[in-house]
């Protein structure tokens, strides 16, 4: 299996605290990596650092062997970021937001209706996102991920605000993504079970 993402010697300081030092991990195709640890142990910061939103004190993240710092565009082209916050405009409708995504990254608009049906958002396309429930808004973020033609899913606490059915759906989607040769790195303290290979990385 080709190695996709590797972090070597990652060190991150937040203000006075050293969140982690000399951290190493590798992520291959068809693999998921769960970052575990108590709240405040830096799970989110690690994901943000791997994505490139945070500057690392030391260490390097490589994508397909190339450092992400120098080859940002190639890395971002194959990456989709699923975060706590919605990442969409609450005043706009689902359709407008997802059409905006199509301007940013490679998006499979041909699968638009199929994805919306699968996430149960078919009837909500005309409503501004403000009027959707938190769970439904998470599904809109999931829709972005499914439509994006991205090999790497970076997910920060994907299971919050989701009911049991929603959480099962997320696991199902991750498995499908891995089966297609994708990779997924997620931060969550909840125990999860996947068909595909699941590695874990524990932060103190």
């Amino acid at each position, binding site marked *: 299996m080709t190695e996709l993402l590797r972090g070597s010697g990652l060190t991150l300081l937040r203000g006075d605290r050293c969140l982690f030092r000399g951290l190493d991990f590798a992520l291959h195709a068809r693999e998921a990596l769960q970052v575990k640890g108590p709240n405040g142990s830096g799970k989110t910061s690690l994901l943000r650092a791997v*994505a490139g939103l945070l500057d690392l004190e030391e260490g390097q993240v490589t994508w397909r062997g190339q450092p992400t710092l120098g080859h940002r*565009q190639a890395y971002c082209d194959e990456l989709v970021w699923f975060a706590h916050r*919605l990442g969409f*405009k609450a*005043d706009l409708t689902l359709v407008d937001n997802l059409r905006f995504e199509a*301007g940013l*990254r*490679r998006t*499979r608009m041909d699968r638009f209706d199929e994805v919306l049906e699968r996430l149960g958002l078919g009837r909500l396309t005309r409503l501004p996102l403000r009027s959707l429930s938190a769970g439904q808004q998470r599904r809109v973020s999931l829709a972005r991920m499914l439509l994006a*033609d991205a090999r790497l899913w970076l997910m920060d606490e994907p299971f919050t605000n989701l009911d049991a059915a929603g959480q099962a759906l997320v696991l199902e989607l991750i498995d499908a993504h891995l089966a297609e040769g994708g990779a997924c790195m997620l931060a969550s303290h909840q125990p999860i079970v996947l068909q595909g290979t699941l590695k874990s990385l524990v932060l103190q």
Partner: protein
Amino acid sequence: MSAANRPTLVAGLVAILRRDLLLAFKRPGDVLNPLFFFAIVSTLFPLAIGPAPEQLVAIGPGVVWVAALLAMLISMNGMFLGDFEDGSLDQLILSPQPLPLLALGKTITHWLVSGLPLVLVSPLIAVTYQMPFDTIGVMMATLSLGTISLSLLGSVGAALTVGLNRGSALLSLLVLPLAMPILIFGARTVALAASNDVVSAGIYFLAAYCVLGLSLAPFATAAALRISNE
């Protein structure tokens, strides 16, 4: 996975322009507030200084320009605030489209929403200052070039202060000193036009500043956004 083709740069720019303009129409306050502010500030001066026509003619260009500068200032703070708070900024930074291009898109939207309306309304204000018609033409030219430069400068300031809680006061402290050359050339050029002097120097300068801003500011804004979004 069928590889969908990557959107072109123009598609990215159009996408962000379309989205932000759509947002602006959903919240007309963003467009009207600077306009009302501009009109109100312009009417303060005659009340304060007196209605004597020759005085008004003398202070006309300066007042219109200072009012426009302040009106732009109050709308600069919101340029990236919305995206910062709802997480859209993460998505913009992590998109394959170059961030300076997206920052330029947001700056253009800010100009369309708060700069252009000022230019269109300024003749009405100028008339209250008994400004002759050809001077109004020069004023609109300098205002349109000047407001573009102010949007570009403002985008850097807004990106630097987006994450801070009392950012708007700091934003004006950062932007105003840098905006002084624009104010100088803008207001003085209109005054020169009023005394039918040669105005080309001022307009050339404002155009040059515009080009300099267009080529440099987006990169500074992109860097500032990455830093503020940490």
